């Protein structure tokens, strides 16, 4: 691998980390609250609103069932509206986040739903307001599961980011396609795969560690 190629490679790693990191944060910031809304408006939830919950669930499912590659293309006008361009890593972050938010929200929703109803009742009996119940009971009790779910989300973001690379977003996927596939640079292809494996493993192990440490059950 030439020095120039090696620099490209380092850039690609950085771009991938940036894409995944930023879309991960956006996903956490929007998907987490979305999960709270999904679970608290569900039948029996503290903010029960059946119709709203069903409509929101349908929207989430619609995004969940659209293949990422199609979402990538379909969201082009929206991406341009938000970041002003449709190429580069910042443009990729938009479809990446929009695909990951409902994915993460559904996973987090399961963790929230597994919180024992008795705990919510105990909090109600203590005179907790509904927001206090969310913040003092639902979130801390569901946290280990949410951390594990967020780890899964990050890993799936890494693989989606490689796909986004294919449409000109930069990052490791882009590099692999341009050099590894189109110019038959097998070393680049192999290096990309090795680095991706390393990143995924690092993310997974960190996530597992925190999920384990947080779990007091």
């Amino acid at each position: 691998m030439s020095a120039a190629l090696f620099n490209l490679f380092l850039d690609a790693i950085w771009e991938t980390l940036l894409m995944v990191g930023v879309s991960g944060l956006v996903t956490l910031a929007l998907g987490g609250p979305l999960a709270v809304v999904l679970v608290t408006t569900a039948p029996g939830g503290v903010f029960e609103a059946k119709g709203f919950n069903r409509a929101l669930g349908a929207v989430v499912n619609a995004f969940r069932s659209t293949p990422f590659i199609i979402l990538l293309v379909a969201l082009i006008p929206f991406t341009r509206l938000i970041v002003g361009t449709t190429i580069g890593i910042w443009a990729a972050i938009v479809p990446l986040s929009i695909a990951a938010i409902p994915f993460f929200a559904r996973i987090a929703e399961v963790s929230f739903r597994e919180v024992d109803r008795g705990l919510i009742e105990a909090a109600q009996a203590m005179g907790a307001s509904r927001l206090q119940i969310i913040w003092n009971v639902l979130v801390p009790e569901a946290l280990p599961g949410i951390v594990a779910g967020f780890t899964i989300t990050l890993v799936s973001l890494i693989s989606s980011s490689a796909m986004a690379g294919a449409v000109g977003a930069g990052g490791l996927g882009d590099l692999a396609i341009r050099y590894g596939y189109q110019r038959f640079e097998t070393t680049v292809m192999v290096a990309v795969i090795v680095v991706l494996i390393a990143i995924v493993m690092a993310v997974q192990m960190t996530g597992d560690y925190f999920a384990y440490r947080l779990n007091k059950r």
Partner: protein
Amino acid sequence: MTNSAATSLPAGDAGEAARTAPAQRGGRVTFDDVGRTFETPDGQVCALREVGFTVEPGEIFGIIGRSGAGKSTLIRTVNGLERPTSGKVLVEDARGGVFDVGSLTVNELTLLRRDIGMIFQHFNLLSSKTVERNVGLPLRLAGASRADEARRVTELLALVGLSDKRGRYPRELSGGQKQRVGIARALARDPGILLCDEATSALDPETTLSILALLKDINRRLGLTIILITHEMEAIRQISDRVAVIEKGRIVEIGPVWKVFGDPQQPATRALLTPHANELPDDLAGRIAPLPSSDSAPVFDIIYTGAETGEPNLGAVFDVLGHDARLLHGTLDRIQGHAQGRLLVAAPAVPAHEATHVLALLKKLPPRAEIIGYVSGSL
């Protein structure tokens, strides 16, 4: 405080609840013709009907009934976890404020709930928080400062005997310790009323005793009102002042524990108290015949309900039955200072034809008595 017009509370039937403990801060709960129906896919389920009674300040009030009788539904109307579909539940705090639970706004209900602690069968502790944080949660919810919270938690943990578990997580505690944490948490804001829904049902008998002793102690020391639901008669017998029996959503019997337990009036109560009340030990049952024979002696079943004045007078019994009377079987218990139980006595000195006459004499004593048959063979 909502000082609603309902200050004239129904007097209820609490007259006999002899209380010695000072009721500085106990709340009063009045159920006024409370009904609760659930709409289910298979039609209406009537969980409570026409429930009306009053729990007095400082009292330990037991509610018993078989599974599905409506106990949980009833206790949950007190802190508004369940809303009655008819009638109302009035909670009066020690300062004389009266809340009509069903008509409170969300904010008023929150205030009321801060004056009512609740403990649960499955403890319902937050697994993600330490003992300290669990106990302090009600304080934090009410906006107490960290320092106040820490101070109060120290007191509470000392009260329930868990000072050394402060930094532990619930999973590191035994069932009894978890329930102590639950009790400490329920007491955090000095409630006037403590609701216990099957608080000891998940515990072994020994731990149950220690938890009951703790509840009694708290009741004595702090004077707070305790409403206790259980299907364990022993728990009620141990610590309650009065008891209500609920059957299919209706209160079928209510009174001081010694009275209800010593002389149950309703079949439902009898079924709960002594599922085997009319069963004799097998060997004895086999020897007792319904009719007298040449060498048989009548068997008298003598019942002490606890209503008699003084202790059971055995001398008087033997004066009537003759001094070679034999005790076949017997139980005697003291509840709230009343001796109650049942003696099975065979009286060879009483000839069969005089048995009814002797029975009449016996009944003047005043044990309640009957002849349950005749035992033959050597005594």
